[in-house]
């Protein structure tokens, strides 16, 4: 009864949904703590900008990778939305879409945070 297909339940995980938001959380926390510590230690704000900017590039790249995985799941087969059939294929597409949307939201939130950091030009 068991097929070797890559959409089998055994090869799926709900954790996939949480990776992009977790990347947002890590970026957010590191930016917050890093900026506080750097400013507290009297380092230049440009250093904070550079570090947060680099972190953003890294985070967005990771999210893009997750988003790409999600996109492929979403486009598995040729069924259209809504993905509400009782089939492993529709479940697969649904998880893809939800992951993709969460990746997009996480990317937006990261860009928000980065812009806000760049708008602050002093450590005070």
């Amino acid at each position, binding site marked *: 009864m068991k097929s070797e297909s890559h959409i089998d*339940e055994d090869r*799926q*995980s*709900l954790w996939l*949904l*949480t990776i992009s*938001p*977790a990347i*947002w*959380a890590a970026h*957010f926390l590191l*930016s*917050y*703590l890093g*900026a*506080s*510590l750097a*400013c*507290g230690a009297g380092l230049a*704000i440009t250093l*904070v900008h550079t570090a947060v900017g680099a972190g953003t590039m890294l985070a967005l790249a990771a999210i893009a990778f997750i988003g790409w995985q999600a996109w492929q799941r979403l486009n598995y087969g040729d069924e259209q*939305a*809504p*993905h*509400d*059939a*009782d*089939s*492993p294929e*529709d*479940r697969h597409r*649904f*998880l893809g*879409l*939800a992951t993709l*949307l*969460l990746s997009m*939201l*996480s990317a*937006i*939130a990261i860009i*928000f*945070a980065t*812009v*806000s*950091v760049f*708008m*602050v030009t*002093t*450590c*005070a």
Partner: protein
Amino acid sequence: MAGHANAMNDPEALGPPPSEELQRAQKERLRAAWKTPEGWRYWSAVNNSVVGQWYTAATLFFLIFGGLLALLMRAQLALPNNTLLGPEKYNQVFTLHGSVMMFLFALPIFEAVSILFLPQMLGARELPFPRLSAFGFWAFAIGGIFLCLSIFFNSAPNGGWFMYPPLTSKFEPGIGADMWLLGFSFIEVSAIAASVELIVGVLKCRPPGMRINLIPLYGWYVLVAAVMVLFAFPPLIVGSLMLELERAFDWPFFRPSGGGDPLLWQHLFWLFGHPEVYIIFLPSVALVAMIIPTFARTPIVGYSWIVLSAIGTGFLSFGLWVHHMFTTGLPNITLALFSAASQAVAIPTGVQIFCFIGTLLVGRVQRSLPMLWIFGGLATFVMGGLTGVMVAVATFNFQAHDTHFVVAHLHSVLIGGTVFPFAAAVYYYYPLINGKHLSERLGRISFWLLFTGFSITFLPMHLTGLKGMPRRVYTYPAGVGLDGLNLVSSIGAVILAAGFAVLLWDIFRPKGRQPLSERNPWNAGTLEWLQEMPGEAWGVRSIPEIDSRYPLWEQPDFVRHVDEGRFYLPDAEEGKREMMITSVIDARPVQCLRIPGNTFVTLLAAIFTGGIFIFPTFKMWWPMAVSTVLALVTIIKWLWDGSGMIPEKEQKDVGLGVTLPLYTSGPTSSGWWGMLITMLADITAFMSIVFGFFFYWTLKQEFPPASTPQLSAQWPLIALGMLLSSWLLTLAANSWNKQDFARMFYVGAAGAVVLAVLGTAALVAGPWLAHMDPKQHVYTASVWLLVAWTALHSLVGAIMLLYCMARRAAGRMTARYDIDIGNVTLYWHFAAIMAAITVALIAGFPHLT
């Protein structure tokens, strides 16, 4: 649309209906197994339908209590220079109002409603740990009543519901603050218990075929909210513990003269407090998401978008906490980051509202009372949301902070986002409770009173605040432009209260002569409406095979098939309460779970656990110690008789050609998941202490300070060696048990117990022999707190191992039936991590700095 004929995914086509005689006999057996006890034994019930009703009724009682306190405040503020309450009483009243509404109404109502209806929405008979629900309810009721009584003895907490030190440490000598800290910690523990139950419920107790893309949206929202509880509540529990240690024993966590910092409390409190707003809000939107498709007569639009919305909000809401602290002098860059996150959360929040509007546009909307409440709620909530975006802007926040503008904002969000949807759900779901409808006429009266009363109270309050009236001050002078606005608000509050009175009267009025509602009166599509009128204690007649998001709409003859018992578990041949455990993603059946029935042991456990929290309030240490021992004994008794029972046979035919094991252990079982989730909350609490440690380090020039005794690495390292060996021996014991090496198992487990106890002693010996005094400095206090936390966990781990040895000796655990030792091993993974981090911090950290 859903392909319900997708037979290749289903186990077997439905057979012919059983004979009427057999159906009757099956129903009799089910009824007997699930019977609600009568007479005084009624209070021993643990079934979700009964406990859920108690829980809901108790939260409504606290709503009335909190509402009366609000009326007192509005009476005091109606006129300038009023002396009705006076400053001391006013402080108690607003503190208790906020605390009661938050901790005893808004949050538990979500647990109550979920315990009541979640199993039915999932076509399940029960939640996986019914006794835990009952325990949670009793803990909640005992703690809540204890707190509410305080005001009658003029000893209520009076430092505001967020309890900022030093106001609540140095300047509040009475027992009020202790009651708050200990009482609410007790209630928070019960909230975590409910979350464990709900998470395992959504992940493991769905009906077969209900894949992850078919879950009712309520399930998604509850899953997210319950996970949020796991990460939001532990910081507050730890913060409360630290503040209580400062109050009772003078450990200076928040006292600058001892190196502490009151801002840490604000961080810990709001790390809980902001997510909590969404923990309250998400389950209420979830109700809206269940109701709207019914009255739009169409499936929800944008299911995946709503899932995005729930999960996205859940995450982002943890990045907002500092926006409650914009005026504490944090660096601009911090303000900017948290301001940005506070704006970003509006995106997922808005998305779900657009999905609701979209559903209404696509469908043919029927006018109905629940929809009226929902529209009122949406309008109010959107207004509160928009003022929320305003106060998320740091510069505006400086102006509005701690004024009545914030009071108006938070009440718009909470009443619009929670109370109105809840009222909609009351009118919608009431027939599921006792088979009767509420009154359409009273409902309309109540809605218009509440809606206009709310607007008259809170719209002017925005202006009161902008004009500069601070919150939490018992009066204001005449003639500064506040008189008229306050009077209007107070008149509005009376109308609002009248609306609540009508609503509550409608809920509680006797309905004996009223006819029963028809079945599925709103013609809804989701599983909870399978219920007959009135419902049976067994919940669902047979556990259905699901092919669609709206089975009642889309699966032909669905209700008849369920009723005839043609799906799973239509019988209780052995007279036991049984339910199905399925896999997380595709809901494949994996176990037929037997759950324990009615008992008083949970009530006793709640009473004794309550003693652990309540006696210290009065500095009664001996009664507390006795209570602790009794709680331990009761809980062990509860587990001994009610968990991991060995079934009389390996497997059971559950129908439709499916045979399932009656006993599983490890990740397939619900118990393992329960332990995992509990430990996630536990380690979050531990990490909050670690967070505090690093917080002090970033703040202080010298941490650890030279004036405190230095801890040599010797004892902590010995302790770590012993505790890690204890952990490894536990792993070995688990493995030996599996291979049925009985003697090896006993030796391994006993060795682990001895090492755990010795390791605990060595851990305590470190700071003890170094003469570290926790009162001296926040560093020594933090070391002691980490040591105490880890020591407690090691000792509890030792007790667990002893329990497993006793179970095996009594024949209640074997090589095959090994859930106990499996779960204890899981516990020990976490205990080992905590031990390692503790030792790294107390022994290694001083060398780094």
